[in-house]
């Protein structure tokens, strides 16, 4: 049974994407409010989504909410707050098993979806603002999350690098904010941020799975009751400007393995050609970077390139020993030069395309990836199926890849290295 995709505008700045696929035994629905990233409001918005996921007027405490969801065969309600390029998406998602697979064909779909809608639009309030108790709990959790960012060395180094790569752009903002800001937040500020989000944020609803007849009207009705004004029209595509000279930043941390991150920027218009180039260069386990910098030269444990199409930026990240930083940077640049010079075989190009196609087509087999895939299509204003994207990949020529490689300019170098080793050097 082929997958059916449909996108429609069901209200002012309210978009409904329906992805119907009969093979799944569960359903996945997301509702997000998209706004441009703003340093002041971003941390508030991410706290709001956490609070919305805690309770609603009908299930006013977290234990009640958890038990309610557990009873619905462990329906999973999750807060979603994330940055996509220069845009912040805030909202909730729910996943629940299809009614036909419950123990006695019990109908849980409408209850599950209604629970999410109640969390979004009928929150538990005290004196016209969010409950003090959950606000302080979530603030404490946010503080913990900010403190714990350092625990994940890879994620931490990527975040630090992004701050430098996208300096001065919305994309450089850490949506979690700072501990000081988290502490200062009041329930009223959060409630105001919430009102603004639902009044003026661009609403993206995605339904993935099957049997939406019962739940779709419930969602449409809830959206119809919203009072909307000053609705923002978000634009996801915001290429990052190239710096006049590459910026170089070195930092020290208590780590054994150094993390080196390099960014390259381009104004290349065809994102699919750029994806093929990035895959050939560093996006596969047989790419130029993997087979040369890791395998042949044994310079790093990992070394890979990722192309962020919304920002026109390719990020090369590697985990290396301190003494190899300089030589690895040169090796990575040399490989880029090699691609620019056409120093790759037709087979290498074909393999990169085949690898990309496998990745794109396998989106068809995961309910989450399917939803993400079409959301990404929406950000580009296209509605290609994964198969159509593969056809585009297959039509990319080696000259296009060479020309595309030439458009990428070295923009940022960031390294997080061991404290001990640095002091030894000094």
């Amino acid at each position, binding site marked *: 049974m082929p997958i059916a995709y449909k996108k429609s505008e069901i209200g002012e700045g309210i978009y409904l994407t329906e992805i119907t696929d009969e093979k799944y035994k569960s359903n996945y629905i997301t509702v997000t409010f998209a706004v441009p990233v703003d340093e002041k409001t971003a941390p508030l918005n991410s706290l709001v989504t956490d609070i919305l996921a805690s309770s609603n007027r009908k299930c006013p405490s977290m234990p009640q909410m958890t038990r309610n969801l557990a009873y619905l065969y462990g*329906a999973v309600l999750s807060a979603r707050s994330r940055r996509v390029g220069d845009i912040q998406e805030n909202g909730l998602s729910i996943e629940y*098993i299809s009614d036909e697979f419950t123990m006695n064909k019990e109908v849980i779909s409408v209850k599950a979806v209604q629970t999410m809608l109640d969390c979004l639009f009928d929150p538990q309030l005290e004196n016209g603002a969010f409950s003090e108790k959950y606000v302080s709990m979530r603030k404490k959790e946010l503080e913990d999350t900010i403190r714990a960012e350092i625990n994940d060395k890879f994620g931490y180094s990527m975040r630090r690098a992004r701050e430098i790569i996208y300096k001065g752009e919305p994309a450089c903002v850490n949506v979690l904010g700072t501990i000081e800001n988290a502490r200062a937040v009041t329930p009223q500020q959060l409630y105001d941020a919430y009102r603004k989000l639902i009044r003026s944020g661009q609403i993206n609803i995605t339904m993935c799975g099957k049997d939406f007849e019962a739940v779709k009207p419930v969602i449409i009705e809830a959206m119809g009751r919203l009072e909307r004004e000053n609705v923002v029209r978000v634009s996801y595509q915001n290429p990052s400007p190239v710096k006049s000279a590459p910026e170089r930043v070195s930092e020290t941390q208590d780590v054994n393995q150094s993390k080196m991150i390099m960014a390259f920027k381009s104004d290349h218009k065809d994102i699919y050609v750029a994806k093929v180039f990035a895959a050939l260069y560093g996006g596969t386990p047989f790419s130029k970077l993997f087979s040369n910098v890791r395998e042949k030269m044994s310079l790093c444990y990992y070394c890979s390139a990722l192309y962020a199409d919304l920002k026109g930026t390719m990020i090369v990240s590697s985990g290396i020993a301190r003494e190899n930083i300089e030589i690895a940077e040169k090796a990575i640049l040399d490989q880029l030069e090699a691609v620019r010079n056409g120093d790759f075989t037709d087979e290498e190009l074909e*393999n990169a395309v085949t690898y990309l196609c496998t990745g794109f087509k396998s989106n068809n087999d995961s309910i989450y990836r399917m939803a993400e895939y079409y959301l990404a299509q929406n950000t580009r204003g296209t509605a290609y199926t994964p198969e159509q994207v593969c056809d585009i990949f297959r039509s990319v020529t080696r000259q296009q890849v060479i020309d595309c490689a030439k458009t990428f300019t070295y923009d940022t170098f960031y390294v997080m290295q061991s404290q001990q080793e640095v002091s030894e050097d000094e």
Partner: protein
Amino acid sequence: MNKQVIRSELLGEQYTLVHHDSGLDILMWKKEGFSTVEALFGTKYGSINNCFKTDDTDGFIRVPDGIAHYLEHKLFESDDNSNVFELYARTGAAANAFTANDITAYQFSCTDNYEQSLEILLDFVQSPYFTKENVEKEQGIIAQEIKMGDDSPTRKCFKNLLKALYVNNPVRIDVAGTVESIAKITPELLYTCYNAFYNLHNMTLSIAGNIDEQTVLDICDKKLKPSRDIHLETSFPDEPAQVNEKRVAAESAVGIPVFCIGFKSDAPQGREYFTKTVIAAMLLEQLVGQTSPLYNSLLEDGLINPAFGTFVYASPGRFFTCIIEGESADPDEVARRIYAEIERLKTQGIDRELFETDKRVRYGEKVSSINDVKACADAMLYYSFDCEDMTLFDDLGMIASITAEDCENMIDDILSADRSSISIVTNKK
């Protein structure tokens, strides 16, 4: 060749088990409507199998820590200098491998040409090629991997917990070994381990997704090299009932201290092992799962945050541990409250309503897991390795039949405070 179809009417799903003449068990699950294929070629061999003998060894031999993982890395190379990833590059498959305590598996995932990818998989896993040069070359890369693991405070905390819980059991050894232990690995040792554990009688192929069963079997007929029985025996040291250390603390660059609490108990085998893992998971849910009173009070008191979880870490007949892990400014207070709650559950019993709700959650999780082709391939392999007389659909019935009394009767065994340890990693001053 012996063929068995394993079916679930409830889920409308089925898979096939074939005992192939070569000695290999083959598990196949055709997933209607799916476009990917996921395959795993696994051996019952991991970091804990470090002392063994076969017909070809001179009695029991003890091999360096981390060798199973090292072997996994080296198997990707072949005598004609071709790299397995390059072969897969032509078929478009994404390939990977992993080594755990008691299993090593080689996997691929693809949407097209699965027949060729399967041939590559069966070929390279059956064709070891270890030389002095290629073995030495890998040491730098694996040393980097070990160092990267040391940079993760949660991983460090977990590793320290296993060392605190166990005195002799090789589960206390890190899967990757140490920079020192891997320096002792030679091509000869790798061949010895390979010949002992990569015997098809000790292995299973699990494949799920957009496949045709007969095509898979034809490829297996063509590619599998029958292996003789070499009478593999592994030896495990005796493990005392008591833990090695009650509390261990270390320092690292962490924003907020991380902790792991473990409860050690005896590891049964077969069906009994399976029942115990399900009961242990249900007990952990009643003790400190998201619906439990303790979880919510710890959260409300700011003693834990959502980075909190529980799991059962076990291997049949080898080790059995219940783990509770998270982040906390005061891990000792968290532990104190957990021990107190265990005592309360012992005297007051389990909340029957929460217990029944948890069964519904487990049922729902099982249904959702069937959506994922990789989860299906993984589950077939794990169930067959863990318990030969259980199928992966049997646990739906098992969950339904377990009672709160069954769980209460196991508290002393599964959650014994006397047999528990806590590991903490705090920020380096």
